């Protein structure tokens, strides 16, 4: 006789707790600093949080450590199952956009985990931001499980679980000062090396002030811009960036007249204009690049912005650099 049991092994259920360790926090820090971006992963599969029974709820998440840890920490004191999808170490919302946090993956994981034999009910609680990759009615048709979209943020789950109804407030994605500040290192890491190279080159060609101007324009676009985003006038990121970059360039333009009182007026004006043209272009370009990090820009809008403003950025930048160079060599 063949032992049927050995041919259909019970799928493994991994243990999980709500407690975040120092190692978890260190991993979160590294993820936010952009260190080995794709490698902050959790093993996909079914996890038992606490001591779940067949009546305990099932939560679905991505296999990015920040996603998984936010979920299990939010469920502190509760028992439940966590179904971790293989999103290749990408967070829920981005993975949903790519389709890896998607209908097919959920269907496959539900069967692979033998979920029907683990729980009595037929309900999956998904993060709301998983919805761009998931057709709830498809999941129901293919697995028998009804998809329930929880709140945007895992932290709102305890509130949500009281009634399984989400208030308008917890259905809205926010972009708070704290969220924006969290993004600064990620933005900055992307540009730090090219900025240093340019700063060194400018130091030896245009001098310390030109070098500082480049660093200032980059800092304005990557550090100040995310912080000041909602308060900068106009709706387009490019124009917001031009305005912020213009303000950052102002001191550099004014110091030309103080530093070089011996120059003729057109030399002074030319140099000042150089800063006023080149710096805002850099800041505006970085501001435009921040669109992808926000929680609200549409592809249509970003494309319209790009066509409207990238040529202006290129022209003002080129004009500013030429003006600066002219007064470096024609002295």
């Amino acid at each position, binding site marked *: 006789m063949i032992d049927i049991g050995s041919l259909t092994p019970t799928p493994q259920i991994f243990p999980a707790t709500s407690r975040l360790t120092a190692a978890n926090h260190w991993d979160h820090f590294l993820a936010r600093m952009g260190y080995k971006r794709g490698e902050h992963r959790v093993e996909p599969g079914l996890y038992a949080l606490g001591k779940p029974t067949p009546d305990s709820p099932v939560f679905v998440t991505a296999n990015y450590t920040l996603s998984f840890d936010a979920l299990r920490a939010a469920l502190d004191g509760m028992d439940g199952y966590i179904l971790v999808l293989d999103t290749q170490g990408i967070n829920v919302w981005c993975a949903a956009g790519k389709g890896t946090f998607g209908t097919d993956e959920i269907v496959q994981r539900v069967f692979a985990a033998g979920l029907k034999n683990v729980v009595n009910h037929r309900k999956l609680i998904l993060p*709301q931001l998983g919805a*761009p990759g998931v057709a709830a009615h498809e999941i129901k048709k293919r697995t028998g499980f009804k998809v329930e979209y929880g709140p945007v943020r895992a932290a709102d789950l305890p509130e949500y679980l009281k009634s399984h109804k989400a208030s308008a407030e917890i259905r809205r994605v926010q972009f708070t000062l704290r969220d924006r500040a969290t993004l600064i290192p990620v933005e900055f890491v992307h540009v730090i090396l090219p900025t240093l190279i340019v700063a060194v080159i400018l130091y030896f060609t245009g001098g310390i002030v030109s070098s500082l101007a480049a660093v200032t324009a980059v800092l304005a676009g990557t550090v100040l811009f995310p912080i000041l985003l909602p308060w900068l006038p106009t709706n387009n990121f490019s124009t917001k960036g031009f305005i912020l970059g213009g303000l950052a360039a102002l001191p550099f333009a004014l110091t030309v007249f103080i530093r070089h009182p011996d120059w003729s007026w057109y030399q002074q004006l030319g140099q000042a204009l150089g800063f006023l043209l080149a710096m805002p272009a850099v800041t505006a370009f970085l501001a435009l690049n921040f*669109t*992808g990090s926000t929680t609200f*820009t549409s592809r249509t809008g*970003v494309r319209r912005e790009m066509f409207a403003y990238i040529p202006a950025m290129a022209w003002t930048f080129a004009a500013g650099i030429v003006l600066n160079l002219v007064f470096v060599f024609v002295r």
Partner: protein
Amino acid sequence: MFDAYAVNTLAYNPELCNGCAMCTAVCPHAVFEMNGRKAQLVRPSACMECGACQLNCVTGAIAVESGVGCAAAMIRAALLGQKEAACSCG
């Protein structure tokens, strides 16, 4: 003043709406609201084209060209000659 975000590709046909309210549950920007037994488009310009409503609308009442609103991804796609911009931040 030119506002790039004033228009988008979101289109809604209320005649097909069956009142399931799924669009109001999945939208992260409260673009839809229930008005009696039908969903109503209340904040169309807040749409970020994530595509969640379309994918979860069983009657096909909602259409939107979804994609990533990321200039960095689109610039990279243009430079590399790719047709579709995909985000790669991770």
